[in-house]
């Protein structure tokens, strides 16, 4: 009996001391489960939200503020003509399967991404590469077709991570990277677990274990946070409950910005919408703040063009499309489009469904009737994005620095302007930051003055976390849950 008591006391003491030591595990909530874990073969943001910077690393990486930091490349040199990048890799880097990461792996990764049969979702990132050579195990030379000041930025994307030829085949279910965490297991439909990589080449991470838990229902997400099943929910799906979390000292609400320009995409070739006066009328009919308040519970920054407001090159062009219903009516009358009827197609996210109803009522106020159709993503991609069978739709373009899509005349909003394409060509040739900013400014102004789309707001990142967690990203320069700097405050 006495022995048993001693044992019980010992067990109690053990668990107490474990509780006293700082917690070094974390459970993160995510709305969507990644379809697979290979960031080089899918666009799903959920893939990068698990693996980016945690499991996989690229030559460069995004910092929490969107700056480009060195990652596997220790440093790089740019030739005078801006066409040749020579990357020096970190030494002693190992993949999680204990093989060395060398220049040949970099060559393999880049060549694979730009190959003919590549299924990389961001193949355009690699389109400018002429050749990749592994000069020695730690030196890679990338020759570009044209000078490209953005090349280090492009290499920071999750789609450009460095993978090994011997393990990439199984990356969909068993990712092997070079990152500070390694994959443990994936219970499909429930969670992915990762743990600290003891052989990491860089500074070791503070967390020993992390779990990503997939909870899509907003009520369930709320309950899971409140019950303490989940320590942090970086993209929290129930913004209406954020005030409740704010009032609770156990939690911290993290509001930041994302790269998501939420726009009223307009089919520039669809009948009356080909007339710039009609598009201008739509732009002036929109009251951005009303949409942000009504659909997003006040979270979001109004934008006047397709560019992130936190970017240094952003130009505030909201005045070009300020809320002015009278002007809209006048423009519609001039264009002979009174009593216009348009089809508004809405994909599933709240910003589109709730925002769409507000946009519809704002358009009605100036005499444009809209017929709303709700679509699932797959259907939206087929009909709107690929088939271009729509008049208006609302969607958030979440890729960073994606103003280049306006140079694609066959892109779904069908904006066809040679002058804009010329600007983008100039941008690709420019390397000096001031020159780049000037061109980007001109490009922003051009699409705003052409009223290509209705520019609504920059999507906010609204998250909830346990008040003791430090080091989570506030903003989302790319869609990621970078856990490398995360720790529990004691």
């Amino acid at each position, binding site marked *: 009996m006495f022995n048993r008591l001693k044992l019980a006391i010992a067990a109690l003491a053990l668990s107490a001391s474990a509780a006293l030591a700082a917690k070094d595990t974390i459970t993160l909530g995510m709305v969507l489960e990644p379809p*697979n874990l290979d960031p080089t073969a899918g*666009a799903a943001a959920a893939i990068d939200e698990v693996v980016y910077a945690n499991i996989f690393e690229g030559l460069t990486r995004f910092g929490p503020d969107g700056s480009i930091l060195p990652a596997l490349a220790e440093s790089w040199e740019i030739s005078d003509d801006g066409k040749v990048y020579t990357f020096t890799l970190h030494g002693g880097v190992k993949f999680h399967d204990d093989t060395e990461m060398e220049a040949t792996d970099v060559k393999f990764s880049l060549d694979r991404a730009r190959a003919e049969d590549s299924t990389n979702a*961001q193949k355009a990132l690699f389109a400018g590469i002429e050749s990749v050579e592994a000069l020695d195990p730690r030196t890679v030379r990338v020759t570009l077709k044209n000078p490209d000041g953005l090349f280090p930025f492009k290499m920071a994307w999750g789609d450009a991570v460095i993978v090994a030829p011997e393990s990439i085949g199984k990356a969909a279910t068993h990712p092997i990277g070079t990152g500070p965490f390694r994959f443990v297991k994936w219970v*499909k*439909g*429930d969670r992915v677990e990762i743990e600290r990589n003891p052989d990491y080449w860089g500074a070791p991470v503070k967390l020993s274990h992390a779990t990503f838990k997939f909870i899509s229902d907003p009520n*369930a997400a709320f309950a899971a946070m409140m019950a303490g099943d989940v320590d942090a929910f970086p993209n929290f799906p129930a913004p209406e409950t954020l005030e409740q979390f704010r009032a609770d000292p156990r939690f911290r609400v993290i509001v930041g910005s994302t790269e998501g320009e939420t726009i009223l995409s307009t089919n520039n070739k669809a009948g009356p919408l080909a007339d710039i006066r009609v598009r201008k009328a739509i732009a002036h009919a929109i009251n951005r703040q009303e949409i942000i308040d009504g659909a997003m519970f006040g979270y979001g920054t109004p934008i006047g063009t397709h560019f992130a407001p936190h970017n240094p090159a952003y130009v505030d062009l909201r005045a070009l499309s300020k809320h002015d219903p009278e002007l809209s009516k006048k423009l519609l009358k001039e264009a002979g489009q009174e009593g216009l009827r348009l089809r508004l197609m809405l994909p599933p996210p709240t910003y589109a469904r709730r925002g769409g109803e507000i946009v519809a009522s704002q358009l009605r106020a100036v005499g444009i009737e809209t017929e709303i159709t709700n679509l699932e993503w797959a259907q939206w991609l087929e009909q709107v994005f690929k088939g271009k069978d729509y008049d208006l739709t609302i969607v958030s373009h979440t890729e960073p620095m994606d103003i280049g899509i306006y140079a694609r005349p066959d892109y779904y909003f069908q904006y066809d302007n040679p002058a804009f394409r010329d600007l983008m060509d100039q941008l690709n040739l420019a390397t000096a930051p001031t020159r780049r900013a000037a061109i980007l400014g001109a490009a922003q102004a051009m699409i705003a003055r052409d009223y290509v789309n209705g520019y609504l707001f920059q999507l906010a990142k609204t998250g909830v976390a346990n008040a003791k967690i430090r080091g989570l990203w506030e903003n989302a320069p790319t869609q990621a849950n970078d856990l490398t700097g995360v720790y529990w405050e004691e």
Partner: protein
Amino acid sequence: MIRYLARRLLSLALSLIAASIVIFAVIEVIPGDPAAYMLGLNASPEAVEALRDQLGLNGTAFSRYLDWAGGLLQGDFGQSYTYRVPVAELIGERIQVSLPLAAYALALTVLIAFPVGLIAAARRGRPADWGIMAATQLGIAIPNFWFAMLLVLLFAVKLHWFSAGGFPGWEGGLAAGLKALTLPAIALALPQASILARVMRSSLIDTLHQDYIRTARAKGLTRRQALLRHALRNGLIPVLTIMGLQFSFLLAGAIIIENVFFLPGLGRLIFQAITQRDLIVVESVVMLLVFAVIVVNFVVDIAYGAADPRLRRRR
């Protein structure tokens, strides 16, 4: 008996073939390209085309049907487009949640419904009966996802007795697994138990009017003895029928409850697969559910025989 069995098996096979054609055709008609979904907004058309090739989406509908149906016959469910693992593996993982959950919920249903139904029938027209009828009416009327949310708010958020959802996996131990399934099973069982209790009550009341009950009472049995020894067994047939339907429903229809408790079950698998246009997963899981429903009906038929020897002989 053998001819009867052969006929049943043939109709089972025909039902499955018909179901497979309907399922495949419906999914063929839905717009949406899995490859485009996977590669997103910035993908180049060539990359999408390359992926379509890789996934084998470029054949004709007929040849794809034959591939799929032929695979099913050999027990091969194919490869998931988005997860890139065999569908059989996905189903295997999910069924470890769905099947125990359905069984757990059905067990709770029976444990609640049988005594409650019996008491209501025995005390017909008295306050206990009225109370039970009112309570079961409420049980049917309350939406189960709402009831589930109440359970979560009380037992997880407030009292911290249970987690708000999720499933640790059976390797974490039987107790932990059952604990995780308890709130969902209760939420699923409440309306089912209410239905079953009412069916039980009315079926028992029907049999209580039969001649053999009067005979039993006449030979000296008390009301309670007559109810338990004679009425109960005779009243079970409609109850078994409903239970069969309920089990199929619990297996396939727990989607909403699975969402509320974020359980990795079959319902959520289908739901996810439909949004991602992981068509082969949708087809195979729906097929499996059809199979399960047919088998459950078959089992219920046999159970009739066990409950009522007259039906056994008639065959």
